[in-house]
């Protein structure tokens, strides 16, 4: 599934709340997968493909070779989504609004995405 499709699924899930309240966590999971695809894509576009490297390294690649804004956005969205994908002792489940916001951040990182 392409990054765009994954993201669309994530956005759909977060807008259709489930009775068990798991929708935002599921959406976070989908969005993080989309983001990881996008990061990989950006690395390749920068001439530094690293399909097997961990995401931390890939974020370093973006930090070094991509724009500062893209590197920041990718890092913050990935860290946030990663937190949202796990159950933490003292952290509340992410709210739907926050995941929607992060989906927006991920979307803005799609290659060729023009911010309106």
């Amino acid at each position, binding site marked *: 599934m392409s990054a765009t499709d994954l993201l669309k699924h994530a956005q759909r899930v977060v807008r259709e709340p489930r009775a068990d309240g798991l929708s935002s966590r599921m959406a976070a999971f989908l969005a993080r997968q989309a983001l990881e695809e996008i990061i990989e894509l950006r690395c390749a576009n920068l001439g530094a493909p690293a399909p097997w490297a961990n995401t931390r390294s890939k974020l370093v690649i973006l*930090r*070094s070779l991509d724009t*500062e804004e893209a590197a*920041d956005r990718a*890092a913050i969205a*990935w860290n946030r989504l990663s937190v949202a994908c796990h159950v933490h002792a003292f952290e509340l489940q992410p709210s739907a609004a926050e995941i929607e*916001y992060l989906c927006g951040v991920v979307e803005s990182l799609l290659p060729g995405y023009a911010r309106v």
Partner: protein
Amino acid sequence: MRDIEDDGAEAEQSVQEAILELLDADSELDDAARELVLSALAEVTDQDDDDAETDWSPTYLTNITVSGFRGIGSTAKLDLPPGPGLTVVSGRNGSGKSSFAEAVELALTGSSYRWRGKQSLWSESWRNLHKPNPCALRVRFTREGGRPVTVGVDWAPDAELTDCSLWNQCEGKDRAEGIEDLGWTRPLERCRPVLSYDELGRLFDGGPSALYDALAKLLGLEVLSAVEKKLAADLKEAKLVKDTADTLRKEAIAALASSDDERAAGLVKLMKKHVRPVDDILAVVTGSSQPETGVLTALRGISEMAVPSVDELESCMARLQSAWDNQRRTELEMAALAAERMGLLHSALEYHARAGDSECPVCGEGRLNGDWATRARIALAEGEASVAEYRSAADALNSAQAEVRALTTRLRQVPAVPGIEIHALALYNPAAEHASAIPVDDITRLGELKAALTDAVGAAELLITEAGELLATREGAWGPLAAQVAAWIPEERRAQQLDARYKAAMAAKNWANKQGAAFRNLRLKPIAAQARQIWSELRQESNVDLGEITLTGTATRRKAVLSGSVDGEPTHALSVMSQGEQNAVALALFLPRATSVRSPFRFVVLDDPIQAMDPAKIDGFVRVLTNVARTHQIIVFSHDDRLASVIRDTGVDARLVDVVRGSGSRVTSRLNTDPARRLVDDALAMVLDDNLPDDVKGRVAPNLFRMALESAAKQAHYARQISAGRSRAAVEAQWQAAKKTRQRLALAIHGDEKADVTDWLKARRGRKNVLDIGNAGAHGRVDNLVKEDVRDLEHAVDDLLEPR
């Protein structure tokens, strides 16, 4: 987000100039009012030279040292890089981080917001429990274009919280008491650079008027407020005179209304006129105009009635009596006979004249001749004298009668006075009528006439006395009333003289209030826009949209109105916000205030601002802070890791400092990370990732190394230059001018981009290697990047940041 204005370069029109301009533009304001505004402005401007005392040199914090105060026992020092940038000081609750924030607040303002209203609670626990002595605070500042200055607060053992000695010391000079001579009084009041969570929470608690004051203060429109105050005072003064006159007038009118004096009504009418004719009123009061009619006139007429006295009456009557007697006597005694004889003689003489000497035709015995005629003429002349005597007696009688008649007419009838009962009138009028009904030429009724006249005169005297008494009573009641009105008159005159001034003062005050409101909101606009901008970054999930922020009303009705909308529905913003949202709005309002171009403080200390914020807001908050941190030194104390983690995740240019409190209140601060070290960490993570192809590592490394070196060099350069008192703008320009990494290193090490750094590069193994890797970006890639290269980078960064 819009950049926070830079260095106050934008020259704001002064309030004086703005007021003058508005005055010029306003053609409706009359000259007197215009004059008042101008004089108020002149007076206020004379007093208000506080700005002249203000030292505007941009000031940054260098370090905070605390001993034996609150959570800190042994001396603990928090170093801060002077210059723009974001520093986040994290520590658990009770780690002592807030003690640093409070130290700054206490040193600058002599009190702490957290303590306000809780004196008793804090007065017992402000000293450190483990190590209460020595108890001292030191806050060190750098000032552009000047020597660094230290502000200290010391407490003697057992001294109370408020019983401290505050001093400042400029490097190379003696200590000076207090901090007044630093020229910060006005900016501290206007743009306090320290804000705690408590204050954020309470900014809205004071209600709309307190918020108005907080915002108005920040606008720096003290001159305008002072002018408004002065004009209000002018108006009050003029109004006081007017009110005093009015009160006196009302009291006098009330007193007059309860009086039955006939002058009262007319006076009340005059006094109720819109423009009081003071001169007319005065004439009535002093009696000089006497417009009186009716009762008073009647009484006065009676009391001043010219009635013959008893003596006059007696002598008059006596004269009449004697005239009567005299006339009667002459009449009786001779005159009648003599007249008859004289008539006869006249006839005889006429006869003799015609008939000549002849026998007497009456007796026939005598002769009517010349001798006889001579004798007869003499006798006739004598007879005429007698007649004259008689006539004079008759005249005397006539005149005596006329006199009595005149006397009688003087006892004319007196009409009754409406509304007043005069007892003597019932006696007098019939008596007078009776007296005047008796003819004076009737000798037989002379005695009766005399008795009647005597009665009438007696009654008249009674009447006059009674009328006089009545009049006196009236006047007695009138006196105090007249005095009351008279007392009002000078006040009224003053009020009338001041009336023009009062009107002008009113016009001036209204003008100032109207223009002031517009002017304030005009000045507030950019700040409100900034606040809205900050709010839009902070709000994230909030459905509350912040609209216009306006200041309305004056004096006790002043208030700040924050309009807003919830999902597009307009509403008052504050009422629909949660506590966390309110804090965010308070922060949005506070940041423009603290970073105002009208403040010398280029640092902002925020104590735990994110307590009530959710994660999404923290993102926005970090964006806001990094934006402000481009021009200001931002120090945020935070009790949890959320803020720090956002910073760690991103490339945000921020330093993280951990505060740890050990046993016995031993507090240590430790630089956790800064941008350069984060890049070192990134490089290390990358080099350790075996799954990352080497050629990719080689491509990524040069940029990463260069960024790390330059980041460290930049921090070192800024800290070094700003500590030396150079301006931020100059430091920034220097940095921008140095394009190459080597030049930037030269700036950091020697303060001169052209200086040679070869020695520095050679001084420690690995430094040259690091620079080479950084520079390789231009040439392509680095082959075989290894862990040791990252170690070299780490050492170079450490050496730059903390030169040995």
